């Protein structure tokens, strides 16, 4: 069983913009690999580096946010490709939770099975968190899955998360394989009851 995740504390890094797709989180050319190790250096690669390798203006390059573990984003983050390479690159870069206005479904699902909470808050709340982090990058942020809230400095902001994902993290069942395998007899019974695995007999 995976470990139960109730609270995550760390500093934040805001990455502004709606519809940031997983091609932007990690360009396809860096997926030529057979393990996820080492993907962290490629997170947001094309928006962080010029063709000659020099740095662009991007929060992930900004010294003020060095060591941040909580990524703050806007709407429909992680849309596009189902590549788990995207949350893997973020995690290897140091991200352990994401707070945003909304997430693409496959992306938030991928985060959950990796033990990365992806929690949502309304646009106004996200703006206030981003502004707080920008003015005080060393300020501590706490995501509390049990209380469904984010604390930033003295303010406490309500968050939400689809209940199954939240429970999986809180119960420590987010690494789903063992949970699924517990029902092996039921899996086999289901397979016997569906027409096509049995040649429509």
């Amino acid at each position: 069983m995976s470990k139960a995740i109730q609270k995550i504390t760390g500093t934040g890094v805001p990455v502004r913009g709606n519809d940031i797709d997983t091609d932007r989180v990690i360009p396809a050319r860096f997926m030529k690999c057979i393990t996820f190790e080492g993907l962290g250096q490629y997170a947001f690669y094309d928006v962080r580096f010029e063709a000659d390798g020099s740095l662009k203006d991007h929060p992930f390059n900004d010294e003020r946010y060095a060591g941040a573990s909580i990524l703050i984003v806007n709407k429909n983050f992680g849309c596009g490709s189902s590549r788990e390479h995207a949350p893997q690159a973020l995690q290897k870069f140091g991200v352990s939770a994401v707070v945003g206005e909304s997430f693409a479904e496959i992306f938030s699902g991928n985060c959950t099975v990796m033990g990365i909470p992806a929690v949502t808050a309304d646009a106004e709340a996200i703006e206030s968190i981003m502004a707080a982090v920008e003015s005080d990058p060393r300020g501590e942020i706490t995501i509390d899955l049990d209380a469904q809230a984010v604390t930033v400095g003295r303010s406490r902001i309500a968050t939400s998360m689809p209940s199954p994902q939240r429970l999986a993290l809180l119960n420590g069942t987010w690494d789903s394989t063992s949970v699924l395998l517990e029902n092996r007899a039921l899996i086999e019974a289901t397979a016997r009851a569906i027409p096509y695995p049995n040649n429509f007999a």
Partner: protein
Amino acid sequence: MAQTLFDKVWDMHTVATLDSGQDQLFIGLHLIHEVTSPQAFQMLRERGLSILYPERTFATVDHIVPTDSQARPFKDALAEEMMQAIEDNTREMGVKFFGLDSDSQGIVHVIGPELGLTQPGMTIACGDSHTSTHGAFGAIAFGIGTSQIRDVLASQTLAMSRPKVRRITIDGALNAGVYSKDIILRIIAELGVNGGIGYAYEFAGSAIEALEMEARMSICNMSIEGGARVGYINPDDTTFEYLRGRPYAPKNFDDAVRVWRGIASDAGAEVADHVALDAGSIEPMVTWGINPGHAVGVSGEMPRVADLSEDEQEGARLAYQHMGLGEGDPIRGTSIDVAFIGSCTNSRISDLREAAKVVRGHRVAPGVRALVVPGSKQVLRQAVDEGLDQVFRDAGFEWRDAGCSMCLAMNPDKLEGRERCASSSNRNFIGRQGSPTGRTLLMSPAMVAAAALKGEVADVREMTS
């Protein structure tokens, strides 16, 4: 009670309800490719697990394969390493693999249907977001991440939350020169790239029923671009006739058809949301921006940022900046450098036929690099039998081997610098076609052909009469 296909198929495959409240769903068909699977095999090995139903997983290679020469070892050492990984993994774990030496190799979403693996009433998962393609057969098909591939390999099941169903009804007849690609681009433009989050899209109506299977696949393929992880069409005689006689189609086909008829949505089945569109109002569509929702009809103008909703403005500004196009300008006449016909959206034989009709007897405009990449070896053979390869070659197109190619440029086919590409693929994200500054305009294959000949975005309706 009247039920949708979605509910019937979901219920039939539900193994249990988990403590988290998610359903544990049995996966009838699991497809894998070389990019998202090696890490899943690694995780299985680390945990000492094996594949529970190896006969329910099928593998192919598509993303990294070069399309000019497929000689081994590949020039790209990383691509070669990935190739060897999937060869080794499938051999060791007993998974059927359609590799480069198989005459069935091709893009995973092209070969599933072609081989008759994809069938109505199935649940289908693949580590690729365009798995929604297979919904064209009345299957519930969706993309998954690598850890979920591990789950399917280990348990043949997934922990899933049940989406709601939105029915999108398209009635009426499509005008000449308008294709299913245009239908889906229009739907995404109207409902937005995140409008489908939390929904499975059921495409219905007389215009959908009139489509052949390949055209239906293009629509379901892009439901994910509208945020809907699942898109499906109720199976009918067109579906069954397509499947009859395919290598993996059921042997007792008539029994299967009886079951398949029963899984279609019942008349009067309620859905959570309903949207309707008149087929006759749809024009050939072209994207001007950096997500598939940034699309206009070919005779239209690109929107002015100020006219868009507040939510869309920032994305549109970034889009104009990246694309170098002017708000309020007509999209028609936008110059292009590259024309790409291919991808799991539009690389099937009917796509190539439609494009060839436009191309026949003409020449690609000077300075335009144009290529056709068939979706599978079977499509390639069929096209050669029909002489389509020659039509394209005579016009100045490059004719390639099967693969994903310039849809995401993990192989050597890439845009260079700021090149602008008319593309029959499904994503115009920044950098998608291999150059961080490259620019993509999505459209139907016939429209790509028209753009290739003119060297600019053109209205195919004026070129085929």
